[in-house]
């Protein structure tokens, strides 16, 4: 058995950068797809609304773990072998898109109907109404819950360890396998997750206060 040493902690910190990277992929990808989902969800075309709503329900009703299994093992057996980071990135993107889409739909719908009417009467077309009137107001409402959801994403990246992606949680397991100091190691792992998430939680709370105090 190997004695726990400083190199192990450096290894954990390096793995944490992969956690960060995966979180970033999930957030950026999830935002792009999620915005599309939110806009489809409030579309005037019934079929598009149904499509988006079906997508949201499907993803929200499926454990992320199973989505990861499907994209890694499932696609793999069908001949589309993805490297772990791609499989994990895709899974988290589609997972985050469903939740962000639903959060943002609520924010778009929270903009009063009278704002649509006023901009309609001024002659703005639908695209201009979204771009200049509705979305800027919805963004303001969306910031606190969105930052809150980012915390969930960071923690959920730990599930990517099951498909062999060496991020923080998996790195903790690996170090533990050679040193067998589970208590110390997983406390350190937990502390690193906390260090990543706590600033986000603080930011979410501060933004929420600001949103309530502001206009």
């Amino acid at each position, binding site marked *: 058995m190997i004695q726990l040493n400083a190199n192990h902690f450096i290894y954990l910190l390096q793995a944490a950068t992969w956690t960060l990277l995966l979180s970033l992929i999930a957030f950026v990808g999830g935002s792009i797809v999620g915005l599309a989902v939110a806009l489809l969800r409030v579309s005037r075309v019934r079929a598009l609304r149904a499509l988006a709503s079906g997508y949201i329900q499907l993803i929200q009703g499926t454990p992320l773990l199973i989505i990861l299994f499907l994209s890694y093992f499932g696609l793999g057996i069908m001949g589309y072998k993805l490297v772990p980071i791609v499989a994990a990135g895709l899974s988290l993107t589609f997972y985050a898109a469903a939740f962000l889409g639903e959060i943002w739909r609520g924010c778009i719908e929270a903009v009063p109907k009278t704002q649509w*009417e006023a901009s309609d009467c001024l002659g*703005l077309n639908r695209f201009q109404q979204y771009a200049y009137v509705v979305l800027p*107001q919805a963004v303001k409402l969306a910031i606190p819950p969105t930052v809150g959801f980012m915390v969930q994403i960071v923690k959920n990246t730990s599930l990517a360890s099951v498909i062999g992606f060496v991020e923080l949680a998996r790195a903790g397991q690996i170090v533990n396998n050679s040193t067998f100091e589970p208590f110390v190691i997983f406390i350190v792992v937990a502390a690193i997750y906390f260090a990543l998430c706590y600033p986000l939680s603080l930011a979410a709370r501060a933004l929420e206060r600001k949103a309530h105090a502001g206009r």
Partner: protein
Amino acid sequence: MPAAEPIVQIKNVVKEFGPLRVLDGVGFDVAPGQVAAIVGRSGSGKSTLLRCIAGLETVQGGSISVCGHDVGRPGSAARAQLRRDVGMVFQSYNLFPHLTVERNITLALTLVKKQSRDEANAKAAEVLAMVGLTDKRTAYPEQLSGGQQQRVAIARSLALQPQVMLFDEVTSALDPELTAEVLAVMEDLARRGMTMITVTHEMGFARRVADLVVFMHKGKVWEIGPTAELFAQPKTAEFSQFVASEL
């Protein structure tokens, strides 16, 4: 009096919300430069009628024509054209809270009329002067009183140089002092020859400014006529009761 060709023609309009018939065969004409006041109790259908004229509601029967555009059919090509010719002011102002007073006014000028930012800003300065709010150019709506917000909303519509202005109970949310400043702006507009249709509870304003009074009751035009005549000799019991109760 309406010698010229009417600019607004409303014929036999029927509007239903589900089983509820809100407008039941409404019709009248407004001539260019005329000020029409639509009055009546809550639920008489007067605001709905105005929203139909603005193209915000679709009608189930009859026709509305404004400046020669057929209104009331959604998605018609006439609708875009209608927007250029008709301005609408709402009870709740409906300014864009995230934009300055100036940008509230210039947004449609730059996006719809494709004016340059400088051109639009000059127009904004002009209409803000008309409503007496030149010094509020860079303020946000929340920093203004209700009366000031409503004047900005009027200026925002005016900037697009509409031929007809619609006012939907624009002073109902304001206290008397603020009401007066908004009504003053509207009187000024009327003097400049703007065609106006206004739904209002301000009987004093209607008597003073309107050429034509339309009394609505139960979704119908119950009584209509030149202002002085109508107030002097109400023909129906409902209208005389209404006038008495509003005093």
